[in-house]
């Protein structure tokens, strides 16, 4: 029972650690990193988003090291992230510059530029495909299929790559039914450099939401939608694609576009939800207008991005429901924090429990 006071604790720990290695190898297979990178896109995207670290190769190593357990993967990546000095901040990215791979709108059938379904599970039936279990034997056939597909795809992509798609929401903005705000170009607060102080700024909220645990963000977004909140959105636009990132020249002091450096692209999911709201005019009359909820995250994580857009809007409005309470939402959706504190309950609590026991016994004696 006691895994604390006995000498030899160190040895027992080493043996326990050995067991993890054994579990990873006992069935004779060694997972190839390449297999993880090419075959587990969903998991890689999810953990990069929750870890706030965009690096597919690192994510794949972490997936391998932790046998695909998402909470462990995120934990590894976040801890690694802590050791990285912050050398640059990127220039502001206009999301219109996204190289679109998928783009849908649930509010208009015809959107300027058209709907692009791209890659999605949305239109599949979730039936287990038993052929996948033995598809290795068709590897040659699959290779040919990919080659053929690539040829066709190149022809199509040629057209869409350089196009800048207008935002669906801009069309509503022009019409004046969206509530208009001045552009806010304040330097965003970096939540990893300065801890949260309440009330928070929107830049802080968005950062916490985007690195939130996928399930937690979805659950709270769902709760708001279902009855513990008052945000009922329509997805104005959902985009998946590549965003190019630039930094200012590290040598020259110039802030001009021409002197900036392209450092790579990140794949993101971006959601703009449209949410109806009532505003009060000066003369006391009321008017219906539309507000935007914004969601963005690394990789293709569509449910998370939509849920984030709901929660973004929730936290902009003060209401009684917990999904509108910024401390409730922002303090409890982080994977590393939640799993860490829950798992600490497995640590010995002998002293604290002894102290509690003393207190319980005393009150019994009094009677």
């Amino acid at each position, binding site marked *: 029972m006691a895994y604390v006071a006995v000498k030899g604790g160190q040895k027992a720990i080493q043996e326990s650690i050995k067991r993890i290695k054994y579990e990873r190898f006992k069935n004779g297979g060694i997972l190839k990193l390449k297999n993880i990178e090419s075959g587990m896109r969903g998991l890689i995207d999810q953990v990069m988003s929750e870890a706030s670290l965009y690096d597919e190769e690192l994510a794949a190593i972490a997936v391998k090291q932790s046998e695909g357990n998402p909470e462990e993967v995120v934990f590894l990546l976040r801890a690694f992230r802590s050791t990285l000095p912050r050398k640059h901040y990127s220039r502001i990215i206009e999301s219109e510059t996204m190289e679109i791979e998928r783009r849908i709108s649930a509010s208009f059938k015809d959107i300027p530029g058209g709907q692009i379904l791209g890659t999605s599970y949305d239109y599949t039936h979730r039936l287990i495909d038993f052929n996948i279990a033995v598809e290795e034997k068709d590897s040659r056939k699959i290779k040919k299929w990919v080659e053929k597909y690539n040829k066709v795809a190149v022809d199509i992509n040629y057209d869409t790559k350089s196009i800048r798609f207008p935002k669906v929401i801009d069309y509503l903005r022009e019409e004046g039914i969206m509530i208009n705000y001045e552009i806010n170009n304040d330097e965003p607060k970096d939540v990893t450099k300065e801890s949260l102080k309440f009330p928070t700024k929107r830049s802080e909220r968005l950062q916490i939401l985007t690195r939130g645990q996928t399930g937690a963000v979805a659950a709270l977004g769902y709760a708001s939608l279902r009855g513990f909140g008052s945000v009922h959105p329509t997805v104005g636009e959902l985009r998946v694609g590549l965003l190019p990132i630039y930094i200012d020249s590290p040598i020259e002091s110039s802030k001009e576009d021409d002197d900036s450096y392209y450092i790579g692209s990140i794949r993101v999911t971006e959601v703009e939800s449209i949410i109806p709201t009532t505003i009060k005019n000066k003369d006391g009359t009321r008017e219906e207008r539309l507000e935007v909820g914004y969601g963005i995250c690394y990789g293709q994580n569509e449910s998370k991005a939509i849920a984030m857009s709901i929660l973004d809007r929730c936290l902009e409005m003060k209401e009684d429901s917990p999904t509108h309470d910024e401390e409730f939402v922002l303090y409890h959706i982080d994977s*590393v924090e939640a799993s860490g504190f829950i798992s600490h309950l497995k640590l010995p609590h002998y002293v604290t429990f*002894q*102290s509690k026991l003393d207190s319980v016994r005393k009150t019994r004696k009094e009677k």
Partner: protein
Amino acid sequence: MENQYNFAFFDEGSKREIRRATLKAIAIPGYQVPFASREMPIARGWGTGGLQLTLSLVTKKDIIKVIDQGTDESVNAVSIKSLVRKTTGIKDTVDTSKASLIQSRHRIPEEELKKGQILVLQVPMPEPLRFVESSEYKTKRLHADGEYSGAWLVLFEKIVKFGMVTGGAAHPVFVHNRYVMTPSPIPKYDNSKLNESEALILLGAGREKKIYAVPPYTKVVSLAFEDYPFELEDQTGLKCNLCGAANVFLDEIKTEETDEVYYQCNDSSDCLKRLNKGGKS
């Protein structure tokens, strides 16, 4: 892909940032200083606040001791110690008097700490008012106003319900006549060691992103009423089964064979030291 970690895990910029928050904490005894808590290679809730303090302070000359609920051999103490060793290469010890830096969870060592030593306590819940007020926004204001009726009321309600101040570890204290502070879940037995301590005591809460401090020679008083004074855990008449010590904090242990209950020093290195000096064997 090869990667070398920096001395003491963090990059130097991170260490500086944490030390800056620590200095502020020392300057305002008992005040919780928010800091940009990093994710660590150990889990949140497993001592990441303490570990960040330790790693930001450690130098090549330090000798470290890590204890968890009183013992140097506990799973988590062993794990933290080996992480510090691995990333710094410094020496460790179980001897309280030989350590320059002591990281502890839920205990202050029995052996009196001396000038120049630093004790780092791991804190799960840094906010003493959290059980009366769940909002951080509001508790911050209550501290600013010195508005501690909530903390007193908790004690008062216990007296009304049970006729005594119940509750175990983490009994709140008044620091330097200004801030109410949770001493982390140390037993009440340890509270007095905070008062006028010769050593610097730092408290770190990683998940809650707070650092606070009890600098040397600071007045620390446990909250209590005149007619219901502060009471320690009742261990009168009990002594350690191994070294025979009384007046130390004891663990209760039940033998499987005879169902007999006996007691043993919770601070295992203190017990060992006494045994080596020729206490009862």
